[in-house]
């Protein structure tokens, strides 16, 4: 039988926690046996999950203790409700109290859980604030995006509040889902069934080239583990907090992005403008080939 790599995308949140960190090291806070479920879903006759779609706790990464959370995309698309969001906030606050080396967030989420709309919206903003509190306290945050549901809505924003984002090509990082845009603005605006276009627009490769993610890896647990470890190691010697200089630089980066590409409508045109050779063929390249071609052309380094 052929030897397989283990797919990050195919793994459940709990499988990811088992496989990303040192074997058996994950220790859960407020585990499913506590049955802290959503107080709102029942009224809508919707099923609940014993962990409300997120597992939070601590684990070791090559011996280094980190705090971690993994959102389960299979449960309501990983969307953030009251309890789900509160678990993330609690984890980030505890990371500050315990001064851990880093927080590693395995993000897979459509954003605010519409069934708990208002509570979800406030909860996501609380997660953003708690994440930035952690950074201000010197605890770096690393976000991994590689699940089938991507990182959308508020969680797409949360991801970009972290120190480092690591993506696979299959991962997606954006704001509004293509179906939402198609519904609101028509199929001419965004054909959500054109999956190649969806991935060109929101997928890992495009985000890597624009500088929205710092590392791109193959859809392989081992690759994510290595990249997460490298990121945590590198961040251990840097300052985690936001600075005026860094945000001024980000302001310039985003202004330049808008000036250079704002009139374009096709991601391949952006890649071509970045002088990436044979830009149209980029989607066909494996992660290593892609990095070899793209690393010297990407923005934000």
């Amino acid at each position, binding site marked *: 039988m052929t030897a397989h790599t283990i797919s990050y995308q195919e793994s459940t949140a709990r499988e990811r926690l088992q496989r990303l960190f040192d074997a058996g090291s994950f220790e859960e*806070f407020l585990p499913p046996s*506590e049955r*802290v479920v959503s*107080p709102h879903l029942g*009224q*809508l*006759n919707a099923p609940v999950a014993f962990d409300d779609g997120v597992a939070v706790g601590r684990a070791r990464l090559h011996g280094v203790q980190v705090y971690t959370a993994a959102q389960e995309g299979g449960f309501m698309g990983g969307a953030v409700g*009251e*309890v789900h969001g*509160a*678990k993330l*906030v*609690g*984890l980030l606050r*505890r990371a500050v109290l315990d001064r851990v080396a880093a927080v590693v967030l395995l993000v897979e989420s459509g954003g*605010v859980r*519409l069934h*708990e*709309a*208002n*509570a979800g*919206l*406030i909860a996501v*903003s*609380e997660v*953003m*604030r708690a994440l*930035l*509190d952690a950074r*201000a306290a010197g605890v770096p945050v690393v976000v991994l995006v590689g699940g089938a549901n991507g990182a959308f*809505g*508020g969680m797409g*924003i949360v*991801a*970009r*509040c972290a120190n480092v984002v690591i993506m696979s090509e299959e991962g997606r*990082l954006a*704001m*509004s889902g*293509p179906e939402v*845009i198609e519904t609101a*603005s028509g199929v001419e*605006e965004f054909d959500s069934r054109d999956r190649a276009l969806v991935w060109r*627009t929101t997928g890992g490769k495009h985000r890597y080239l*624009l500088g*929205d993610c710092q590392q791109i890896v193959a859809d392989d647990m081992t690759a994510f583990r290595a990249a997460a470890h490298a990121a945590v190691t590198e961040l251990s010697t840097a300052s985690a*907090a*936001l600075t*005026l200089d860094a*945000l001024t630089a*980000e*302001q310039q980066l*985003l*202004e330049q*992005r*808008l000036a250079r590409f*704002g009139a*374009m*409508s096709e*991601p391949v045109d952006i890649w071509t403008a970045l002088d990436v050779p044979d830009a149209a063929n980029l989607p066909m390249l494996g992660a290593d080939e892609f990095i070899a071609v793209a690393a010297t052309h990407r923005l934000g380094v």
Partner: protein
Amino acid sequence: MDWKTLANTLFPQGHAIVERDDFLSGDAQVDGQTIAIIGTTGHTPIGVEIALAQAQAILHTVRTAPGRPILMLIDTQGQRLRHRDEMLGINSYMAHLGKCVDLARRHGHTIIGLVYDQALSGGFITSGLMADACYALPDATIRVMGLPAMARITKVPEERLTELAQSNPVFAPGPENYWRMGGVQAIWHDDLPTQLQAALARPFTGDRRSALGLERGGRRLAQPVIEAVAAGTPWQRHDD
């Protein structure tokens, strides 16, 4: 409400706010001190340009007017729903705005939000909800989406949602519900200048919205869950 009417009511001592493509910026006099004004109007959708303009204005204030309080005036229909904005990474622009608000706070700026008309999901989350505290006018609309759309997505009949919204602030739009959940610090019913002065004078003591949600009965589980996780204490059931 028209932003000019609002500004004239809010700043009897005068203001110099200009509007450019639905983006508001400038300053105003409150209780003898100058505060910076940043905001949006016309229910404008928040696309990459206007997110960037707001961030720029905040960074400019931090750089040129250390410690000057900032008031964000909020009126938006939410994030702009365009392929082009997604392609450009609108979430990064939104996050950048949120981070600039956070930075301003950490640099000693009091920064508060006021929803004077509409506040919807993505347009609200990196502005008013990132401020030290967010306030609202009584007639403001705050929501993630309308009940009809919510009914379609959740497949729960709209009548049932409407009924649930009577008792559970999670489902229905409106500043009252956000107040009950702690997302809105207070609703300014009258005497706006005094309310604003008091808000600017309020010391910031961290993000207390989940605690407020518990006190006010709008979000009963968020605070206990945060505490249980953060403190590592055993879970006490909160089934009341």
